[in-house]
């Protein structure tokens, strides 16, 4: 339950950013209801505002949410034996927070109703905070000049910094940062995806060269 409060700033942001980027209230809410992925939603809104095309937004979404592949892989022993509708339902609700709370159970101790409860709690909280953000974004003028875009930076920086513990990650972050500023300065449409992939590639190459494990 307290963890669902942690999604509050994100939800508010997702709602108000959608309005800021000239999406309609329904489109903003639709993003939260259908996509249900914080980082991907904020980035898509940001890219939409920056005039990125459909393909580059989808590719970024794919890359940004690729950690879910790893979650799925980890939950596979527990969930792949469940009936189809449970797999579909819990699959849709498989978020970072859901994974954090349910991945410690094995096949014996896993309770699908508990998992459903956790997932739905996050889903409802996320959509309520999005709605609040949409209402705020509509009623407070010039919300876009408040520098709300910094809250993305603040969140991501706070998430990245503790990960930077070894040389490959340092290389990955450095290459990605340099390329993203450079490519954006050159007005490349695929600046973010290209620099993200280059950073990932550089980190991976460095890891291979130094023979370290992840």
């Amino acid at each position, binding site marked *: 339950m307290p963890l669902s409060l942690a999604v509050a700033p994100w939800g508010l942001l997702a709602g108000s950013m959608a309005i800021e980027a000239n999406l*309609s209230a329904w489109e903003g809410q639709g993003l939260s209801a259908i996509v*249900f992925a914080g980082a991907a939603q904020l980035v898509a809104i940001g890219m939409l505002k920056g005039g990125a095309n459909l393909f580059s937004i989808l590719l970024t979404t794919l890359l*940004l949410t690729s950690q879910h592949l790893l979650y799925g892989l980890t939950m596979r022993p527990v969930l792949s034996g469940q009936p189809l509708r449970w797999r579909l339902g819990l699959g849709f609700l498989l978020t970072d927070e859901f994974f954090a709370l349910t991945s410690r159970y094995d096949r014996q101790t896993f309770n699908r109703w508990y998992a459903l409860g956790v997932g739905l709690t996050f889903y409802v909280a996320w959509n309520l905070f999005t709605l609040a953000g949409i209402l705020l974004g509509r009623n407070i003028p010039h919300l876009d000049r408040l520098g709300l875009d*910094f809250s993305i930076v603040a969140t991501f920086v706070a998430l990245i*910094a503790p990960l930077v513990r070894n040389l490959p*990650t340092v290389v990955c972050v450095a290459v990605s940062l340099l390329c993203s500023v450079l490519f954006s300065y050159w007005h490349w449409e695929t600046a973010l995806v290209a620099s993200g992939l280059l950073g990932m590639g550089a980190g991976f190459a460095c890891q291979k060269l130094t023979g370290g494990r992840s």
Partner: protein
Amino acid sequence: MTWLLIFAMGLVVFLNRYAFLEPRLPLRLSSNARQFLGFAVPGMLTAICGPIIFLPGHELDLSLTNPYLLGSLVAIGLVLLTRSVLLSMLASMLIFFVLRSWLT
């Protein structure tokens, strides 16, 4: 166009989540693929932050009085000290807004 994007994104995210829950899918990710994906969070998130920090309003700002840069440094310091993502995020946002009204 926006709705097409929303549904397409929903589909992409859902397929990512569901892919390995499907019992008929026999494969496992190779160790290389998994290591590469392991860099997705730092690599992609950094790429998103870079232009917001150094190109506010689409103009290059490499000065040390750039509030986005100072705010980010504060966030890095706080999260390394406190290990609390939420606290660092809120505190650095507060400092960012103070700095911004000060420096501009």
